[in-house]
Structure formats: structure tokens, C-alpha cells
């Protein structure tokens, strides 16, 4: 679904990424992990078409990424909800921008899926941080994207909400499977969610190792079987 070939990117004289090769299969969940400044967000923005690579190419569903596309959704660190729009209108924003027909029923379904029934008419500031990020997840899903890109989507949340949301994402992924690239600096999140974990080493960002997580789903945070993978990752970082 995603092919990244010999991808490099520099900001001025600073090399952020060097020679990244990566294949992501359909419905595969790949986590990208690394210390801050290792270029993991840059990699995501290159796949999203928000940045143009200095070298190398990115393909999604067989066609080269040259600019942001409708079949690729991006979820950011912060919910990025429009404060003047209701929850429902925020979820429907991509549909409105794309000029598509009535998707209200679909929006209601998605909100129900993440436990936000009855909040459709609320404004974002009336919601907790975790609920806002759930709305952002629905906004991502309503595009029916071939690829979902997530840039540390839970990192601005408190630890408890964070754990809750990563388990919720796992549940959503089991119900509505998507191809996902998930950038995080949390080992627990990566091990809980991913089929494969790409470990980046910093300056410039290179693929240090790719770890397969062969555990059956659903997984649970704190499950002893996850510990071995976590330990391996800790050794690599």
C-alpha cells in the first residue's frame, strides 16, 4: 500500500532523514518509533505529501505522492478541531472540503463507534482532550482513507487517557481495518498497536531496525507477552 524508496530529506544544512526504504502492506499497522529529533514526524509528513522529499520517492496505492491526497488522512498531535464548529460539523469537514454528498449518518456511526453518541452538537471546548482526539479520529475515518497517518496522536494527553485511547484505537482498527503509519515515542503504544515497529536512529534519521510483533489481537497494555518486545525495543533505542 505504501512504498518508500531511498527517501532523504534535509532542512537546509540539517539532514533529517537519509536513505529510508520501507514497504507497508494493506491493512498493516506500522509504528515508527525513535528519540525526538530522529525525523519520524518528517517521514510521516513526506508520506502525507505535506513536505516534498529532497531525494527518493513515496508511492501510495501505486501512485506517487506529490501533494496531500484525499485517500490519505493525517491525524496530528493536537486534535486541530475548528472551535466554532460542532462535533458533528468537525467530523464532516473533509466531506465538505471534498464536496461530497450527505455523510451525516456515517458521521453519527463513527461517533458512536468511539463512544461519543449524544455529543454531536457540542462545541470542542466543551470536550476533554481525549474526547477531542476521538473526534479527530472520526474526522480521519470519514474520509475512508486508504492510508491513515498518525503523528503522535496521543502524546498531548495525560497517561490514563492515553492508555484508554490506544486501546480504543486497537478496537477501532479491528472493526474498521486500515493501513496505518503511527508515529510515537511510546514503546507501550507501539507494542500494543503495531504489526511491525520501525526503529529510527537519529541525525540523520535512518532505519535502525524493524521489529515484528507477532502477538495475537486484541492485546492489552501490561500483558506479560508484550514485555519481551518492549525490552528488545528499549535495548534498540
Amino acid at each position, binding site marked *: 500500500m505504501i512504498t518508500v524508496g531511498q527517501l532523504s530529506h534535509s532542512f537546509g544544512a540539517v539532514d533529517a532523514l537519509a536513505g529510508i526504504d520501507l514497504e507497508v502492506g494493506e491493512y498493516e499497522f506500522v509504528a515508527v518509533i525513535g528519540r525526538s529529533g530522529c525525523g519520524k514526524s518528517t517521514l510521516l509528513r513526506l508520506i*502525507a505529501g*505535506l513536505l516534498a522529499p529532497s531525494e527518493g520517492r513515496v508511492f501510495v496505492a501505486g501512485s506517487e505522492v506529490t*501533494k*496531500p*491526497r*484525499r485517500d490519505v*488522512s*493525517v491525524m*496530528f*498531535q*493536537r486534535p*486541530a478541531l*475548528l*472551535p*466554532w464548529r460542532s462535533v458533528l460539523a468537525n467530523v464532516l*469537514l*473533509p466531506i*465538505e*472540503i*471534498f464536496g461530497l454528498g450527505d455523510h451525516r449518518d456515517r458521521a453519527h456511526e463513527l461517533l458512536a463507534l468511539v463512544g461519543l453518541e449524544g455529543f454531536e452538537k457540542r*462545541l470542542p*471546548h466543551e470536550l476533554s482532550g481525549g474526547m477531542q482526539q476521538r473526534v479527530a479520529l472520526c474526522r480521519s475515518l470519514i474520509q475512508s482513507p486508504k492510508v491513515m497517518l498518525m503523528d503522535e496522536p496521543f502524546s498531548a494527553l495525560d497517561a490514563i487517557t492515553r492508555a484508554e485511547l490506544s486501546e480504543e484505537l486497537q478496537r477501532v482498527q479491528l472493526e474498521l481495518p486500515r493501513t496505518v503509519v503511527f508515529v510515537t515515542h511510546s514503546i507501550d503504544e507501539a507494542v500494543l498497536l503495531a504489526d511491525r515497529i520501525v526503529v529510527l536512529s537519529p541525525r540523520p534519521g535512518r532505519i535502525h531496525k524493524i521489529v515484528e510483533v507477532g502477538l495475537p489481537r486484541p492485546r492489552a497494555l501490561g500483558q506479560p507477552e508484550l514485555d519481551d518486545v518492549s525490552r528488545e525495543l528499549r535495548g534498540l533505542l
Partner: protein
Amino acid sequence: MKAVLPVVGLVAIIGLWWLATIVFGIDSFLVPSPADVVASFVELPGYLLEQTLVTLWEAVFGFVVSIVVGVPIALLIVGSTIMERMFYPLLVALNAVPKVAIAPIVVVWFGFGISSKVLLVVLVCVFPIVISTASGMKSTPDELTELFRSLDASRGQEFFKLRLRHALPQIFVGLKVSISLAVIGAVISEFVGARAGLGYVINTSGASADTSLAFAAMTLLAIISVGLFYGLSYVEKKVLPYA
């Protein structure tokens, strides 16, 4: 309940003013007492209300034109760096010119009628509207512009669905500054050349040394300004419940 304190403040000031005119025995030709002012109004209520409506209309008309002109100018400035570089300094220079200095020329060009008044009001009002709209649009958070970029939104969508909407609270700040300036602009213009309006009343009452009539007219001006300002605040609360 919220209205009690402003009323107490107002009554206190009027009481002090009245007391001062009595205690110091000030000639009503210099400073009329509140009673003199009310008497002036009661003498000519129909005439004064008519003049009030004239000034109110000039101010509101000019204010609306300023919005219609100012917001598109802001869109151009935000949308095009070339436009901004070319015309922004001119706009600043235009704003720096004292409007009192332009008023006579405007009257020469447009005569004693309403068009010269409206034009002067626009000259006074448009700048705060342009500045607040442009700076509000520019201060749109990066996360939101990035979201629109990731959705491959058009420039028009980014401007109207995001930036302009985001700027609304700041636009209202500019509008509140402008609405008070609008009344001032109308009065300046009436001072320079007019046949009606509260500015005209004040000007002619000065010539005939009728200080209490001038005070009555000024009171009406204050009432207009306060009314317009709070009216606008009310609209703001309705439009921006989340702010």
C-alpha cells in the same frame, strides 16, 4: 442587576457636576447645570431627535461601507504578499493623516450632503477593520492550516472556511474601535460643512453662545456611541458564543 453599577456611576457624576455648578456659582453660559441641559432638550425635542437620526445614519452607513470595503482589502493583503508590499504602507500613511485635515477637502469634493459625511466616516473606520481582519487571519494556528493542507483544500476554502472565520473575534475588536470612531468621523464632517446633524447643532450653538444646547447635543452623541457599542457587543455574543 448588571445595569445597577453603571447607573450608580452615572448618577454620581451628574450629581457632582450639578453640585459643582451650584457650589462654585458657575455661570450657565460657561458650564450649564444638568437641569439647564435637560431644559434645552425639552425646548426642541423633535428637532434634536431629527438631528440625532441624521448623525446616527451617517455613522452607521459609513460603518457598514467600511466593513464592505475593509474586509476585502484585508483578504487581498493576507492573500498576496505583492499587494501587501504595494499598498500596506500607503494605507498606513493614509491613516496617519489627521482626518480633520482631510474633512474640508472632502466637503469641497462631495458637498454638504451625506456623501461627504459617509466618506469621512469610512476614512476613519476602515483602517482598524483592515488591521484587525488581516492580523486575525494571519494568526490562524499552524495546526489548523496544516489540517486544511492535508485535506488538499483550495485557497478559497482555506480563506473562507478557516482564516476569515478564525479572525472573527479579532474582527469584532476592530469593529468596536471603529463604531466609536464612526460617530466622531460623522461629527467632524458636520463641523466642517453641513446643514444637519448633531455636529452642525454643536457648531451653530457655539456661534450663538447657547452652551446648554451644545451640551444637550453632546449628551445625545454620547448616547448614540454607547448604544452602538453595546449593540455591537450584543451581536458579538450572539455570533461568537464560544469566545
